[in-house]
């Protein structure tokens, strides 16, 4: 299947490993990425632009949706935050035809019009809903038996459930656990999996932010997790990048690698860790990879 690919700012910025892993994984999963369609698309606003001007955020997202519509391909993202912001914008645009018409007025000059057919989908949902877990399992060459993984969703891919279509797509609530199990790993369930990683207040209240990192990583670790897996690069940045701060704040070792969803898939699909830059994390994945029992 072909998708209009929306990589998001972070996979082109501080998380280049997410971008490389996605490209590799999509090739094996027969997901064709149309990278040209959304080359000129802007940032979603991440909820921050929306604090200052909601209409501005909706206009920029309508522009991205119109570009995807024009390409004829459904829109795919690899960031929980992009997913949530887009879903919320789409909900507002589709709820009020007058609002949509007035937003379209501002897109006219560029020759764009959002007709209302975009259905932005995270790679996680594409796998579970469009490809299917059976298809994923048919492509797996390395079952990650023995690996214990704590899921960490990122707020914007689990709330608000209405804008995210949880009622119509019941699999979304457990999608990450389904993927973890399908690659042969074991799910380490913990209450923090749908809570906040602290990233949005990283520069506003660093102490609270680091406390959130500490609570989640320590809880997952103490429940036996070997690593944490997330579909959100912002969660990755905080849980990985600030884990050393969390460890020193709590005066203990944490040492919990934070793996991007495509990196996990890639390990099961036989892609080399180096290609997915798994050696390029703040919390080293070396021990994890050396202990990984890979059985075909």
């Amino acid at each position: 299947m072909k998708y209009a690919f929306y990589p998001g700012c972070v996979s082109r910025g501080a998380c280049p490993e997410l971008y490389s892993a996605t490209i590799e994984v999509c090739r094996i999963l027969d997901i064709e990425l149309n990278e040209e369609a959304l080359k000129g698309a802007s940032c979603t606003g991440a909820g921050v632009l929306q604090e200052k001007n909601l209409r501005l955020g909706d206009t920029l997202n309508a522009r991205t949706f119109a570009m995807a519509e024009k390409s004829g391909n459904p829109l795919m993202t690899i960031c929980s935050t992009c997913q949530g912001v887009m879903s919320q914008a789409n909900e507002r645009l589709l709820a009020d035809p007058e609002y949509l018409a007035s937003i379209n007025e501002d897109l006219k000059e560029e020759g764009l019009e959002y007709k209302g057919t975009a259905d932005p989908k995270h790679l996680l949902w594409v796998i579970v809903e469009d490809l299917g877990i059976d298809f994923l399992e048919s492509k797996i060459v390395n079952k990650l038996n023995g690996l214990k993984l704590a899921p960490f969703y990122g707020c914007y891919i689990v709330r608000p459930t209405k804008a995210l279509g949880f009622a119509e797509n019941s699999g979304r609530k457990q999608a990450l656990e389904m993927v973890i199990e399908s690659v042969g790993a074991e799910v380490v369930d913990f209450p923090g999996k749908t809570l906040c990683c602290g990233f949005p207040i990283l520069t506003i209240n660093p102490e609270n932010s680091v406390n959130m990192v500490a609570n989640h990583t320590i809880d997952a670790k103490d429940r036996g997790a070997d690593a944490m897996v997330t579909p959100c690069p912002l969660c990755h940045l905080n849980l990985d990048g600030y884990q050393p701060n969390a460890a020193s704040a709590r005066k203990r070792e944490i040492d919990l690698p934070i793996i991007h969803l495509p990196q996990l898939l890639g390990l099961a699909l036989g892609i080399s860790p180096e290609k997915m830059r798994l050696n390029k994390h703040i919390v080293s994945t070396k021990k994890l990879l050396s202990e990984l029992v890979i059985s075909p």
Partner: protein
Amino acid sequence: MEVKFNVRRYDPESTDAVDHFQEYLVDMDDSSTVLDGLIRIREEVDGTLSLRCSCRSAICGSCAVRVNGEAGLACNTKIIDVLSLDGKTVTIEPAGNLPVIKDLVVDFQPFWEKIKSVDPWLQPEGEEPEAEYLAPDEDMLHLAGVVSCILCGACVSDCTVMEVDSNFLGPAALAKSYRFVGDPRDDSSQQRFKTLNGYGGVWDCTRCMKCVEVCPKGVAPMDRIMALREQVMESGYKNTNGARHANEFTNSIKHSGWLDEKKLVIKSFGIFNIKAMIGLIPLAIRSQRAGKVPPIFHKNIPGVENVRRIFEKVETKK
């Protein structure tokens, strides 16, 4: 149907005052609510179970508890909708982020303190009118959601910031503040903004949307907090990390179409904030070493002029 209630118990007066889960098997109807179940347990199975409730109609706000880990009113939650995967079990715990007095009863004192601290009353200036202070209906419409708050504490229970910081005013108090800031008859907004801009105020919210999701009355506290941020900035409070963060984020999209992560971090803390800049050095070194750094030169997206034009058009509309 037979329902297994897994209830968190705590009795400070018992000899072994540790909290623990207790199971109760109760026969319930398909139409029963969680509160029906808890009352049946208390009245027919175990009279020592403490819970708080009154109206049973989602009006009084007394019976907020955590059902399967998420806050909600016991009286408007149907058991059949919350049964766990085994089709039989419901887990009930007291509301979070407030001290437990006994079993499902929590101490609301810290909740009321925060509500009080935002001066939850109208503060008009000028001459008193002969009768009521009147406001046009259309000016009050945007408050319809927020005045629906029944002060049940569900949002506070599940607030992810209050979990790590008891100083945070929290979703209930901030939504209450919005109710008065947004009231055309109130004249104390500047004073209110000062509190809201301070430590523990609007900028400490993480935008996790937990409060929006669990609120049983559609108050959407986080949306009110975002609206307050906009007003706080517009009223002149621009020199906080939060305001700088929002401004720099917006500027970055306006000028390049996407986020310049390096610049955002530096500008949010403030480049002359020496302590914060020094604090960033270890992270910068770690990231550099791992190759996890944005490109040195932040390039514009193709067709950025279209994004800039949208900014100009929409910003002038405001």
